[in-house]
């Protein structure tokens, strides 16, 4: 298949899958088969596109041009390729997982769930391949809207409240600040195309550039920078597969991905570095890292703790973007992937625990390790990766982030990163340890509890092993990240 068609196929396939899912709504087996086949095809296509891209081919395709100079266009570049790879592969894994989860948990409205899920993936892919900020914004908003039914899936009052916060913050920041940033960029630069080296250099006074960057930083609400992070914990009312893929990978990574794109291709790292545009803003990210970790420690609800952990980890990427040095951007790009694999494993485990035991609280997990060894081993591996210990992939991104902070002489930031790693240990590591070594509250060992359905275990095993593989073989990610940050 020629590469242009390949891009479109990756974006459109989930859409066709969605229609397939809706038409086969009365036959759950066929419906799930459609989901799996679509997800597999997307994964294959993304990988083959990546291979073609690494061979040095450049592809672009334009769909429409609503306003002169402003087109809906797609283009493959390194950062987008990296993100699409992560999202494409993890969709397949999540699909396997969610079949077990949704059936094991006997959820209602499963057709709507799978359909909205496919739509969300389509939007995510479109964001990944956007050739300009306008296209990106279009699908950024569609992603918010298509995930809304997933967040409110349960239909309870709590779900509706969560949905309102979700929609309110994401739409509010994107229309109020992000769109304004885009308009100002358009007004100043006359274009919104992503270009290596940025489009703003020399056209904007550095003082104003700092303000514009703030519009993007806070406007891209999906990056969950404080104080606009509340939507993410609120979104945890969704079924766990949604939290896993969308609120650990697709949606939140769209946020930081957008911020990276803006940093690299709209501002340009040279422009930022030479004018110290992000000098003050970087502390917002540093503060988010620390505060979110501290809040995570106070949360007894497992998914809420993971959500705040995500808020904190996202700000690692934001921080890397704002460092704007080569190592910082490398670390940020790689952390997109590393955090994705680790955090999705944690959510998978949380969902497995919930399906098997209906327990949601951390304090209830004592002694469960013996009943669910695979789940908690996966949880343990992912925890180590989040903390950034070898031999796990998470180490590499933290390594480069730390290097970036040293490189720019921000020693205080290095301290923040180290302190945060300690906090990670404090709020994540006790969970598997207590599960394995503490006694259950009742005093006797669990006998009636067994592992979650097999498809869920399979998904967890795949992602946790990937965390290990990424330590020994980070090369594809490394290459893509190097390309994204402007060649070797």
């Amino acid at each position, binding site marked *: 298949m020629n590469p242009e068609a390949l891009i479109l196929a990756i974006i459109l396939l989930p859409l066709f899958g969605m229609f397939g899912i809706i038409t086969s709504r009365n036959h759950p087996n066929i419906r799930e088969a459609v989901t799996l086949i679509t997800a597999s095809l997307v994964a294959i296509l993304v990988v083959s596109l990546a291979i073609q891209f690494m061979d040095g081919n450049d592809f672009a395709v334009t769909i*429409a041009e609503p306003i002169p100079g402003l087109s809906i266009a797609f283009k493959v570049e390194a950062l987008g390729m990296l993100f699409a790879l992560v999202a494409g592969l993890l969709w397949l894994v999540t699909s396997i997982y969610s079949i077990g989860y949704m059936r094991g948990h006997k959820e209602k409205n499963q057709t709507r769930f799978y359909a909205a899920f496919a739509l969300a993936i389509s939007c995510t892919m479109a964001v990944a391949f956007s050739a300009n900020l306008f296209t990106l914004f279009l699908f950024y908003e*569609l992603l918010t809207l298509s995930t809304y039914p997933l967040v409110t899936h349960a239909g309870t009052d709590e779900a*509706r409240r969560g949905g309102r916060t979700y929609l*309110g913050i994401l*739409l509010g920041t994107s229309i109020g600040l992000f769109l304004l940033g885009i308009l100002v960029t358009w*007004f100043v630069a006359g274009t919104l195309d992503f270009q290596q080296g940025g489009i703003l250099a020399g056209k904007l006074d550095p003082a104003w550039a700092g303000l514009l960057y703030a519009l993007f930083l806070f406007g891209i609400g999906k990056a969950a920078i404080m104080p606009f992070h509340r939507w993410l914990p609120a979104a945890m009312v969704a079924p766990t597969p949604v939290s896993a893929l969308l609120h650990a990978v697709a949606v939140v990574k769209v946020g930081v991905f957008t911020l990276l794109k803006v940093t690299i291709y709209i501002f340009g790292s040279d422009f930022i570095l030479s004018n110290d545009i992000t000098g003050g803003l970087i502390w917002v990210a540093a503060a988010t890292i620390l505060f979110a970790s501290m809040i995570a420690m106070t949360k007894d609800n497992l998914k809420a703790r993971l959500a705040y952990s995500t808020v904190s980890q996202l700000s690692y990427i934001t921080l890397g973007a704002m460092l704007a040095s080569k190592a910082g951007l490398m670390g940020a790009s790689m952390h997109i992937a590393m955090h994705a694999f680790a955090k999705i494993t944690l959510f998978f485990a949380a969902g497995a625990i919930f399906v098997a035991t209906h327990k949601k609280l951390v304090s209830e997990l004592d002694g469960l390790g013996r009943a669910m060894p695979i789940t908690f081993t996966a949880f343990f591996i992912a925890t180590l990766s989040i903390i950034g210990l070898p031999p796990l992939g998470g180490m590499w991104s933290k390594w480069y982030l730390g290097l970036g902070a040293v490189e720019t002489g921000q020693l205080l930031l290095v301290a923040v990163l180290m302190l945060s790693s300690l906090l990670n240990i404090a709020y994540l590591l006790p969970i598997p340890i207590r599960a394995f070594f503490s006694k259950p509250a009742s005093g006797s060992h669990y006998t009636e509890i067994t592992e979650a359905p097999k498809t869920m275990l399979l998904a967890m095993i795949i992602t946790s092993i990937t965390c290990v593989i990424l330590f020994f073989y980070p090369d594809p990610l490394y290459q893509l990240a190097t390309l994204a940050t402007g060649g070797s």
Partner: protein
Amino acid sequence: MGNHISLLLVVIPLIAAPIVAVLPRGRLPWLATLIITFICAVLASSQLWMVLNDGVISYELGGWAPPWGIEYRIDAVNALVALIVAAIAAITLPYALLSAEKEIPQQQIPLFYSAFLLCLTGLLGITQTGDLFNVFVFLEISSLSSYALISLGRNRQALTSAYQYLIMGTIGATFFLIGVGLIYSQTGTLNMQDLAKLLPELAHLKTVHTGFAFIMIGIALKLAMYPLHLWLPNAYTYAPSVVTVFLAATATKVAIYIMLRVLFTIFPNDFLLATPTYDIFILSGMAAIIIASIYAIYQSNIKKLLAYSSVAQIGYIALGIGFASSKGITAALVHLFNHALMKAALFMAVGAIIYRIGSCNMKNINGLGKQMPWTFGAIVIAGLSLIGIPGTAGFISKWYLVTAALEQQAWISVAVILFGSLLAVIYIGKLIEALYFKPVTDSNQSVQEAPLLLLVPLWVLVCANIYFGLDTSLTVGVAEKAADVLGVINTSSISGVMNK
């Protein structure tokens, strides 16, 4: 034939109106009106096509040369507005059949269609004529017929709303007439082109200033410019659904067209700059966007909610006019077109709900989204367009409006426009939440999807909302030409204090 289009657009519905009134009851009046509106739509689109290709069309009524005779003068601006009016009429009519049968007493239906055609005559007439007094005549034709149309509503409040509108509308028309009289007393002409030539030398006269003020207030009443909008929410709420669809999409738009004409064609730019006109537009626009949107949030009647939203949307257009730059006018014209699309779609969807459950109160629509998925889908998409989500027509309007504001560094306006979008998120969100998440009430358990005859026109409009969000060669292309025609002089310091 080609030259007569402008006249035909007025004469055809005018002659058809009395004929329809005497047709036997049944579906014949509807069919006749349907045919007439389709003819008008075809004529209006071919007229726009001709204007775009060959330039301005001037038609001398009865062969009397202007400025003595009445001249119909068509350029890109009014060709566009005429097309909006005729096209919306043509889309509304298939929808009208069932909706009117449901909401209007049987014996009044021929009269309803007759009044509808008269209203169409008036609105098209305003767009075609190049004569200021003639504008007044058509304004009265359209207004009188719309009072009648509104009073056909099912509730008794329809009568008081129509009466309220009648009083306000008549004040507006009278003010307009007084203004025209004052101007005439100084210039001795009513032809717009002629006025444009004569007025620069007379601009210093107090009488001209007074006349201008009267005309402005008169039109502002007609277009429901904040704070002269008080008649609009009730009129839209209690009128029959079809009438609301048609009037919301066309009547105020035509008034805005006259406003543009008076401001940019007739009166010289220096004259306007010496008056606070543009500042008033910007102030009024900003107030409308914020205050009317907040009012919309607190409405429990959906039609009233949408009516307040209309007032807010007119605020956006006023803002675009207030910028007085070619970008601003382009934005205003694009929004004129796009808002017609989205509001018509929303009111049609509400009409479909009324058709099924006989009410449009928030309390009674709970959970209907699942029973009426196509109507619900239409509300979602048209609502997104109203909010201005990219990929919809509404986004294009907002984009141009904000670019126009940025061009003048009018930061307050930018903030207000974006804040207005957020308020729209709230009131559309309220609607969607009620339709989708609230449990279905017992009385609504058996409600079915609206009939196809209501859904098809509705979805034509919904698709148009998406189409014009992706391909703007028609809307923006024509609007830019129109802004050129209006000859707006783009001076960035134009609206003084407000933008600093």
